[in-house]
């Protein structure tokens, strides 16, 4: 069986970060690939969460670790293949139990009679089959990883949305009531408001004082008068 490797980038590596995913699109894609049984989804959910965590860790650690995607995909595919094939193999083992014996007998008979190139052909076939199996396992792992990741993102989005809604409805009002009733918070808010008011008043006073000087200087220039007289001595009588 020949398997064609798609030149597309590694599905795990090509997946966008969680915060860059459109929630609506993510929900639709997750729904479209939802499994037929809840058990499958439950099994895939930890895998998807693990993938998301791994993505986050790799994004934080740097691009050098992105090459680990192929190995991870192979392990995932291998695990899934092992799980799904276990039952099938058990059944097939009963039927195929007689075939190896016949094949072994045939090979032994043919090997004894044939030349070395003829003996090498089954070995090459075995190698090709093993390589194809490896590639198929990787592809399978990638598909499952993408599916699990999409499901995990949808799960996290749904859970975070419901969690935020719960916090808004249940926690925030209580917290606000508590904070509003707290004398320290009230005192703090009052002090903040007073501080803001004092700052605004100080700014107003400074600007008006500057404007006082400007207006006066302008009038003085118009009238051709000099700067005001120097500060009078304390003992000087008041002028009027």
């Amino acid at each position, binding site marked *: 069986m020949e398997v064609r490797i798609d030149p597309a980038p590694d599905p795990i590596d090509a997946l966008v970060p969680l915060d860059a995913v459109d929630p609506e699109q993510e929900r639709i894609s997750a729904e479209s690939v939802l499994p037929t049984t809840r058990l499958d989804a439950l099994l895939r959910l930890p895998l998807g969460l693990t993938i998301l965590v791994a993505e986050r860790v790799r994004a934080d650690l740097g691009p050098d670790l992105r090459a680990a995607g192929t190995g991870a995909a192979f392990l995932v595919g291998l695990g899934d293949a092992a799980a799904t094939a276990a039952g099938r193999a058990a059944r097939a083992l009963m039927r195929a139990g007689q075939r190896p014996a016949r094949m072994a007998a045939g090979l032994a008979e043919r090997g004894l009679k044939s030349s070395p190139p003829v003996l090498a052909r089954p070995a090459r076939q075995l190698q090709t089959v093993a390589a194809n199996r490896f590639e198929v396992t990787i592809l399978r792992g990638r598909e499952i990883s993408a599916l699990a990741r999409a499901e995990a993102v949808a799960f996290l989005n749904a859970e975070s949305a419901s969690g935020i809604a719960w916090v808004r409805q249940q926690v925030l009002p209580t917290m606000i009531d508590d904070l509003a009733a707290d004398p320290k918070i009230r005192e703090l808010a009052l002090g903040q408001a007073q501080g803001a008011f004092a700052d605004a*008043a100080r700014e107003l006073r400074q600007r*008006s004082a500057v404007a*006082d000087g400007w207006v006066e200087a302008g009038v003085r220039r118009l009238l051709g008068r000099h700067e005001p*007289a120097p500060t009078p*001595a304390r003992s*000087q009588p008041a*002028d009027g």
Partner: protein
Amino acid sequence: MDPPAEAPTAPAPDPVGLPHDAHAGIVSRLAALVLDVVVVTLVAAVITGVALAGAEVMLGRVPAWVQVPTAVAIGLLPVAYFTAAWWLVGQTIGGVAMGITVRDTAARPLRFLRALIRAAVGLALAPIWLLGMILILIDRRRRSLLDIVTGTIVLYQRSLPNINRDQDEGAGAE
């Protein structure tokens, strides 16, 4: 020219050698006056509304014994407001906002009679009060005509600590 009841026996010395810019200028004083007019107008509106509307609701009409005291109160309100503010704290609400305070020529807080005369004269001759503020622009101590007539000065609030300190030192030396 101070009122007879409080006329000083000798010309008051310039208190503590106040610099020119310790006295409030025309912009600050006009702004404070505008704020005070707003405050007085609002209070007058509230008093009028409460009195007249209350009488209307409770009596079905506004009798003369409600109208006359209300009119008197509204008429006296500005004088009462400015007098009380200058006498008690030296500052109206507008003055607090703009950071200016009214003192006598020795930079002391106004006494009641001087505050009353300043308010009554100023409000009775309001146009002259306003026109007389032009003198602020040319007077050495930024005094308006009303200040000259009633023997007052208007200072920035920020300059008061220096004045008080100097006055305390002067009293200690004596």
